[in-house]
């Protein structure tokens, strides 16, 4: 099936040089702020239970080992934090099954960092500074814009995401050019998927251009590993960064409660079972670390390949990878 040119790199050497410079700049950024660079295992016994993130499973028949390639270094880094590392960062290759497209490659480079004592708003500020440092000289960026999840839904679609019904979401998607989404219906369990469809297909492309856009305080049902804050509507202290409609980073004011973490793992696995997906081995080491005490902190994961796409004006992730998966 290979094309004759498939041995050649998918990215140009200019882009590879830009990647190298970006890595230099980010290391200088964190070094100046006394954030420690760490390395954690790529291959581990447990994995994320997240319903929408699937890990590659590996086994060694000789040693009778079984494990997963990590989809993010989050759990191991939180164990370092609980053990007293202080603020840390890592640049690592991560792996996600069934993710391939113009902005997805099953193997990609994630920058993940944790700031002890920060909440998600303080971390958004730092993400903004880092992104401006890394894109400096390549992309002219206007003033950063910040919206809550509720505000952006109200402004762009005229709906309150916390009170809207599944039927209303379905009707809203119809109005915006999605008369039918095969596999989504009017079940309560489809609500987040409808919100995610509207967010990624309708709101993201219409976000202000040429500036960082942060969206924060997601519905509690999309908390993932963020803590939930009570209020008129409970919200997850989670944020996303977009530039020119492209999702670049996802951050949390981190959940530190081990009981709640266990409940979320179990709920994820229940939902996996309901959807006919494989159950995932929960990370007991993370739960024990949380039991011991994770310092109050905020953490964020940023896709470096996508940042490089922005810096170089690349349309496809393949254009910034030395060898995209098709050539790997």
């Amino acid at each position, binding site marked *: 099936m290979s094309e004759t040119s498939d041995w050649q790199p998918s990215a140009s050497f200019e882009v590879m040089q830009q990647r190298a410079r970006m890595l230099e700049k980010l290391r200088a950024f964190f070094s100046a702020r006394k954030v420690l660079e760490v390395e954690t295992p790529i291959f581990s016994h447990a994995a994320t239970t*997240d319903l*929408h*993130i699937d890990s590659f499973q590996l086994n060694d028949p000789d040693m009778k080992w079984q494990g997963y390639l990590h989809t993010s270094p989050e759990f191991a880094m939180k164990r370092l934090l609980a053990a007293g590392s202080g603020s840390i960062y890592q640049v690592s290759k991560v792996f996600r099954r*069934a*993710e*391939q*497209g*113009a902005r*997805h490659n099953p193997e990609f480079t994630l920058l993940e960092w944790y700031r002890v004592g920060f909440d998600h708003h303080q971390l958004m500020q730092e993400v903004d500074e880092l992104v401006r440092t890394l894109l400096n000289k390549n992309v002219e960026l206007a003033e950063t814009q910040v919206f809550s999840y509720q505000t952006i839904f109200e402004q762009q679609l005229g709906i309150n995401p916390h009170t809207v019904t599944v039927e209303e979401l379905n009707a809203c998607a119809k109005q915006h050019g*999605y008369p*039918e*989404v*095969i*596999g*989504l219906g009017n079940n309560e369990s489809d609500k*987040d*998927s409808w919100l*995610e*469809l509207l*967010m*990624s*297909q309708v709101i993201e492309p219409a976000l202000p251009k040429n500036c960082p856009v942060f969206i924060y305080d997601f519905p509690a049902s*999309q908390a*993932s590993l963020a803590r939930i804050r009570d209020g008129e509507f409970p919200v997850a202290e989670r944020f*996303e960064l977009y530039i020119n409609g492209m*999702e670049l980073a*996802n951050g949390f004011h981190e959940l530190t409660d081990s009981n709640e973490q266990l409940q979320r793992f179990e709920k994820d696995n229940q939902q996996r079972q309901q959807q006919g997906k494989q159950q995932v081995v929960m990370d007991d080491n993370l739960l024990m670390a949380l039991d011991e005490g994770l310092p109050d902190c905020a953490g964020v*994961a940023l*896709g470096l390949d996508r940042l490089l796409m922005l810096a170089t004006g690349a349309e496809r992730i393949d254009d910034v990878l030395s060898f995209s998966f098709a050539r790997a």
Partner: protein
Amino acid sequence: MASYSTNEFRSGLKLMLDGDPCSIIENEFVKPGKGQAFNRVKIRNLISGRVLEKTFKSGESVEAADVMDMEMQYLYNDSDAWYFMDPDTFEQVGADEKAVGETLKWLKEQDICTVTLWNGVPIAVTPPNHVILEVVETDPGVRGDTSGGGGKPATCDTGAVVRVPLFIDIGEMIKVDTRNGEYVARVKN
């Protein structure tokens, strides 16, 4: 029944949608980092020829369409159908007017066409990229004018009307690109 998961979607894949065989033109994978993935797909309905967009929740399965493209030789037509033959097995199929459609004006006996079969029945006929046709009607040729400037309409033996250079005369053979309907060259007998 054979089916495809959205993970297998790629251009050219043939699916059954709303009871009609369809072909994927373009597949776009979209996924929030945390959250549901979707496939936005541009699809051609092979019966109506219409292009439509569909969105799937990733992981859904869709019935495969038993659609094959066959290289077949055009033989002749009668009042009911246009007949094509598989040059290997000599098997013949008849395509109706709907399946032949616009291709009709390029059909020359013995030319090899691509016949799209759904459950063994022709639903579309694609002509060869280039066909050689005889000019049966055009204004008299202007001798020596090979500048290529200007041009005039010429009716061919299959009924197609093609814009040709001024020097082309009735009875001459011309090569035409069927994809854009443009004259390519004069063919010497």
